[in-house]
Each structure stands twice: as C-alpha cells, then as structure tokens.
C-alpha cells in the first residue's frame, strides 16, 4: 500500500530501528542492575571484531544461522510457521556424522557430497512430514513441528548411544576426509572453527534469491503464501506448494545441521535440548524480512551477539546470567520487529497508506 520508494526505505528502517531499540533496552536493563552498558557493549564488539579468532567464531555461528534463517523464511513465505527448524538441524547433523563415520575411506569430495546430501534429504523429509500433514489433513504445523522436534531430539540421542557410538554419549570424530575445515581459513582466523560452510552459505543465499524471484516455482510459493484463494483460482496447487516449501525449508535446516556437524564440531554428542541455532534462525529470518541478503547480515549480527556475550562477565563485570538476559532482550526486540513494523504502520497509515479501493 506504500509507494515503491517508501516501501524500500521502510523495509530498511524497520530492522535498523529494531536493532537500536534492542540495544537500548539491553542498556536500560544493565543500568537498572547497576552495570555499565557502554563498557559492556564495548567489551562485546571489541572482543569479537578486534580479534580474528573470535571474529571467525562469530562468522562460523553466522554460517549456520544463515541456513536456519533461510530455512525458516522459505516456509514463512508460503504462509507456514516452521518452528521445527531446530529439530531439522539436529537430524541433519546426526545424519551427516553417521554417513561420514560409515564411509571413512571415500575420497573427500565424494564423502562430503554424500554426507551433506544425506543430511539435506533427511532434514527435508523431516519437515516434509509436517507439510504433508498440513496439506492433506489440515493439521496445525506449529504443533506438529514441535512434536517432531522432540522426536528428533530423543531419536538422535538414541542413535548416538546405541547405533553410531558404542554406548557413549559422544561419537568418534569424523576423519579429515569428511571435515569442512580448510587450513587457510583456520590460519586466517587463528584457529577458529570457521569452515567452508561459509562459502556454501553464500552460494545458498544467491540460490535462494534466484529461486524466489526468478523461477516459476518461487512465484508459486509467494503467491500461495499471500493469497491461497487467488492461487487456486490461477491453477496453482496449494498443497503441492506447501509441501514443496516445507521440503526446501527442512533441506536448508538439515544442511545447516550438517555444517554444524562436519564444520563446527566434527562429531555429535547427546543433547539435553534442541539446538539454539534453530530457534534463533526464526529471529534471523524475521529481522531479515525474508530477504536473503538481509538474512545473511542479520545472521552475522546474531553471530556477533552470540560470541560477544561471552566477554561480558570478564571484561565488563556483567555476570553470565545478566549477559544472557541482555542478549535475549536484544533478540526479542530484533525478532519482534514485526511488532515495531506494526507500531510504525499505525503512526504512518494516516500519512502514507490508503485503502486499495473503495
């Protein structure tokens, strides 16, 4: 309902404003409890940005968040709230390790391709279950994906204990053949776990953009997400597109899990809860407003926050718990930019927007 230029400016302003508000709110919290927010934020950003190792770690985290963010976004475009990204990450992760350990002697290219593909497929199927249930039986995807999350969690732990390792809580490490680490990146970032997943993420960002804006399939996903009735009228199949978008969503999340496995950790260990990257991916996607480049940058911001919060206790005297609350508050505001958009709209409607017709 806005003119083109306004819309662009506005799409840019909203996330920026959410970030600023998040930081202000975090600062107020710290002030309230008697800590120095300026010192804290300085510690956080200096800590990450001035040190190659920590910067590498932040980028590594951003890599995985890019996948989970894009994964959430693609389903969201089709009108689907995939809260199951975390579970899909987990099944991708365990699959990649399992495959890598099962065929340790394959050549590197082959083994990596095989592991990544397997993880991608398993993630896709895992999310696809919710898609099929929604498309054909109308079940609520939020509830189904939450349940699938728990199934993923316990199934993974079971597999680790009983199938992939022999009774332990940790699997063996995958061989160098299955590792995504590359020497020059490790050296450049002074031994961080930053890996080739970063390049895959950048490629996927580009592919996502191509899919959404340049292909007929992306056109359908967008149309179905915006108006189910008009899409059906136009001959698109709503069920097919729901399943497709969920499939792609899970594929991206599964791939993210594999990069966690083969890049970050090199193994998998029993989990007490679902991976946070899954849930933070939702905030990343909402902050990026579904734009792939926006998602990439918001993933970097989240990576920096994640790693940077580690500096608060030592360098700014902000205790661990407080640091986590501050980060959570920032994430809340950032993720709640929908809310900010809404408030913004209320103030602006009378000025820029009009009803489309009579």
């Amino acid at each position, binding site marked *: *309902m806005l*003119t*083109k*230029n*306004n819309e662009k400016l506005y799409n840019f302003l909203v996330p920026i404003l959410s970030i600023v508000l998040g930081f202000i709110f975090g600062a107020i919290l710290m002030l309230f409890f008697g800590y120095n927010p300026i010192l804290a934020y300085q510690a956080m950003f200096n800590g990450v940005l001035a040190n190659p190792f920590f910067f590498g770690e932040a980028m590594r985290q951003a890599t995985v968040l890019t996948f989970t963010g894009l994964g959430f976004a693609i389903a969201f475009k089709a009108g689907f709230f995939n809260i199951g990204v975390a579970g899909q990450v987990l099944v991708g992760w365990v699959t990649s390790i399992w495959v890598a350990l099962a065929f340790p002697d394959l050549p590197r290219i082959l083994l990596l391709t095989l592991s990544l593909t397997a993880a991608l497929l398993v993630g896709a199927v895992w999310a696809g279950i919710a898609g099929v249930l929604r498309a054909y039986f109308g079940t609520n995807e939020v509830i189904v994906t939450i349940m699938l999350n728990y199934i993923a969690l316990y199934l993974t732990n079971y597999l680790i204990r009983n199938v992939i390792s022999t009774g332990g809580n940790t699997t063996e490490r995958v061989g160098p053949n299955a590792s995504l680490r590359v020497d020059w990146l490790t050296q450049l970032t002074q031994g961080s776990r930053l890996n080739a997943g970063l390049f895959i993420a950048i490629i996927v960002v580009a592919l996502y953009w191509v899919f959404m*804006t*340049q*292909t*007929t*399939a992306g*056109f359908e996903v*967008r*149309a179905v997400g*915006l*108006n189910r*009735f*008009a*899409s*059906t*009228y*136009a*001959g*698109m*199949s709503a069920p097919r597109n729901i399943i497709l978008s969920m499939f792609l969503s899970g594929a991206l999340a599964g791939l993210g899990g594999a990069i966690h496995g083969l890049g970050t950790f090199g193994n998998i260990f029993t989990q007490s809860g679902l991976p946070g990257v899954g849930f933070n991916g939702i905030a990343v996607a909402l902050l990026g407003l579904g734009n792939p480049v926006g998602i990439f940058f918001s993933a970097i911001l989240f990576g920096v926050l994640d790693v940077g919060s580690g500096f608060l206790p030592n360098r700014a005297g902000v205790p661990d718990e407080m640091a986590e609350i501050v980060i959570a508050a920032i994430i809340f505001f950032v993720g709640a930019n929908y809310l900010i958009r809404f408030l913004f709209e209320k103030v602006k*409607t*009378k*000025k820029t*927007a*009009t*009803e*489309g*017709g*009579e």
Partner: protein
Amino acid sequence: MSETNKVIEMKGITKKFGNFKANDNIHLDLKKGEIHALLGENGAGKSTLMNILSGLLEPTEGEIWVNGEKVSISSPDVANQLGIGMVHQHFMLVDKFTVTENIILGKEKHKFGFMDQATSQKDVKELSDQYGLRVDPKARISDISVGMQQRAEILKTLYRGADILIFDEPTGVLTPQEIEELMEIMNALVKEGKSIILITHKLDEIKKVADRCTVIRRGKSIDTVDVATTSQQELADMMVGRSVSFKVDKKPADPKEPVLEIKNLTVKEARGYDAVKAIDLDVKAGEILGIAGVDGNGQSELIQAITGLTKVDSGSIKLDGKDITNKKPRKITETGLGHIPEDRQRYGLVLQMKLEENMSLQTYYQKPFSNHGFLNHKEIKEHAKQLIEEFDVRTSSEENTASSLSGGNQQKAIIAREIYRNPALLIAAQPTRGLDVGAIEYIHKRLIEQRDHGKGVLLMSYELDEVMNVSDRIAVMYDGNIIAIVNADETNEKELGLLMAGVPLEKAHEQVTETEGKERETVANEK
C-alpha cells in the same frame, strides 16, 4: 468568508503519491442538509479525497474548513470529533461481535467497571428507531445480511455523533431492495439535519437522492451541478469527457455448436445441502448467455463448479467438447476457460504482488513468460504494459502492487487479463461491479466482441439491465434450478422479475401479457 450553511469546504486539495497526483487542486463544498454526490471515473481520486476528509490520509496541499473553521484532520479521531463519519465499502466490523458491541466499540459505557450491555443495547435500539435503521442489536455480525451490516456501520458513525456522513460506493454490494432501503435511510438522515457525501457510479441513484453533484476527472474537479437540472447523459459525458453511449450496440448473435455443455449438474453447498439441483445448460459459441437471479440462488456455486473451485456432486460438464467435470482449475483453464470472479479481492488478485505479476497469474509458467522454469521478467512486464494500455487500467506503474489500484481499476485489470487470453468460454461474474459508466460501456463492447469472434460468454449479474442489454439468451436461476431460459429480446423486466421470484414461465408470461393488456385498455379508455 464562508457562508454559514456550508458544513464542509475543501479548497485546493492536492494529494501526491510519489510523483503521481491522485487529487489535483480539488474543490468541494457540502451544504447542511444536502446529499452531495461525488462522481468520477475509476481512479479519478474519489476515495482518496474522502480518505483525506476522514483523516486516513493527509493532503499534500489544500485547506479544509468545517462549519466555517479551518481545521487540520490529522487522524480519524479528529474527524470523529468534528462530526465526520465514513461508511467504507469494505465494512470495518468485527465478525464475532454483536451489532451493539461493534457500534459501541471504543465508546463503551461502564457501570462499576463492567460493560453496561443493557443500556448500550437500549441506546442502539433508540438510535436505530430514530433513523429507521432496522438492525437486531443482539445479532452477531457474521450472522446478518450485508444490508444489515451496512446499517450497523451507519449506526456506528451516528453513535459517534457524526453529522456529516460519507458513503463510499455503498450500493455495490447491495440487492435492489436493499438499495431502495438505503435511499430511504439517506433521506431520513438529511431530514434529521445530517449532511451526506455519496460516492457512486450509478447515475440513477444520483438522480434519485442527490441534490448536487461534483464531478472529478483524473484528479481534477470539473464542475459542481444541480442534479435536478442535469440529465444522466450530461453527467456521464462530463465525467468521462466524451459522449458516452448507454445503449449496447450489437448485431444479432450467430450461435454455433455449444462450448459449454452441462448435464444434470448437482453441486453441494459448504454446509452440505444442494445449491445447484440437477441442472442442464448449454452455452454456444458465438452467444452470450446471461444468468439472472436473486443473489444466493445457486449462481455462485454453479460458476465455482464449472471453474473447478468447488467439487461437482453429480452430473457432467463439458468445455469445448472435453469433459472437465471435477478437473483441476489449471486443466480447465488450459482447456479454454477465462473467469472474471465475483469476489475480485479474494480470487482475482494477489493484492500484495505487483500488478505485472498479477497480469500473468495463470500464464507465468508458459512461454514466453518463462522458459524451463525461469521467469522472463521482460516479457511479463511487456505483457502487463500492453494490457494496461489497451484496457485503460489507470495506474502510475505496472510495478505498483495490485492493492494500490483503485477498486474499479483492480476490476479492469482482471477483466483485461481474462479477455486477453481469448478463451473459448469466458465466465464473467458481476464484471462491471464498481466500474464507471465509461468503463462499463467498454467492457460490454469487449464481451460482445468475444461473442462476435465466435467465443462463448457466460454472464452472471444481479443487475437486470446488464443481463438484458448484453445477453442473447437469459437463464433465470431460482432455488438451485434453472426455471426458464428466455431470449433477451423477447422478454422484459417484469417477466424476469417474476421468474426470479420463482413464478413458472407460463404463469409469468400470462401475468405480464395480462397487465400489459390492461394497461393498454386503461390507456384506451382514458382516450
């Protein structure tokens, strides 16, 4: 200074969207106790002007005076305080609330911190009695007719103390009887000292109730005239800027073999009862078949079944000789169907997508709009530009979202898309709803052109004039049945009216010839 009997004066109002001027130095004044019509083509800027008056938009330039005082209407609340209320075409009511709850929303009366339902209901009752606005204060919005919803909307503005009421295309959604009632209500309102601005495309409505009429064209005010001394033709010509013909010019039809063959078709309604009851119907190539009937007699379900949007319960449908019973919409479209849907915003457009994307909504996957699954944006754009040009869809750019178009232009965009595909059968449901007379003339011409090119056209409309003027044959639907099919040039409004009320053809025919005979007699006797 301004005369005291002017309750509203809008002076030199300009509103820009980007570089596009939707309103360009418009003048409008409203006298106390008058009904003032606002007439203009689709996209002329009527809704924009009224949104400015009701505080939804801020003007780029210009002054507004209310009761002789200069004001700045920065929000709907301010408009409210100034006694200005707007009845939107798409009602702003909460479905799950009762009529009373909707009316008092935001102005609730309290008693010891509890909402005082009883008093509120009494207030609403009194108000509705005062103005003759029949509503059931306790009924839920979702359970009442569109007409009653509109009355609730009117009461809502009155409850907030509005003295100046703005109606934006209020009759588009109403049945003929409801339109009559609305006209009476408006007359009652001005008797009580209210003043009304009425936006409508229907000239007979203007003639019937309005005192003066302001005409705007492409954002500029053209003139304000006294309705009593201006003919409909003059109004139409002034609005369009050329001479408009109300008569539909057409040669006799030259029907060929049927393009649509419906046999024994039964369609169930959402709640499970039969909405279409075992009907047979043919549409031939080279003819326009009109479907007349009072809203809710199965017309919508019939169309949904042909287009594949609803399941067929039993019977068969053939399009261009091929069976399309219960086929998917895409398959049916490809077999040769075009469909201008009744509900344009729900089915016809993806409002948030660009206009150009909407123009290829059914064809994006075909050449030249895409190649091996990749969209060809250049072709999509070219195609959209061509349609916009040819069908005179008014917009500043094909890249605007469909939602930014005026209501009538949204409709024109859909019609353009559907006619341009040149389908063997074109289904047009209420195709000219919300269109200005110039656009209606053009659309009718295009429908007839389709026919003359040997295509079939199925025209569904609740407006008898339209059905009678454009169709070659007319099928009347009543209670899920087609109770008669008559030739358009052998029937008249009276006969159709009786048929639509369920009177069988022979009886209707008898009654009509009888009354006509009597009329002739009385005329003869008077002489």
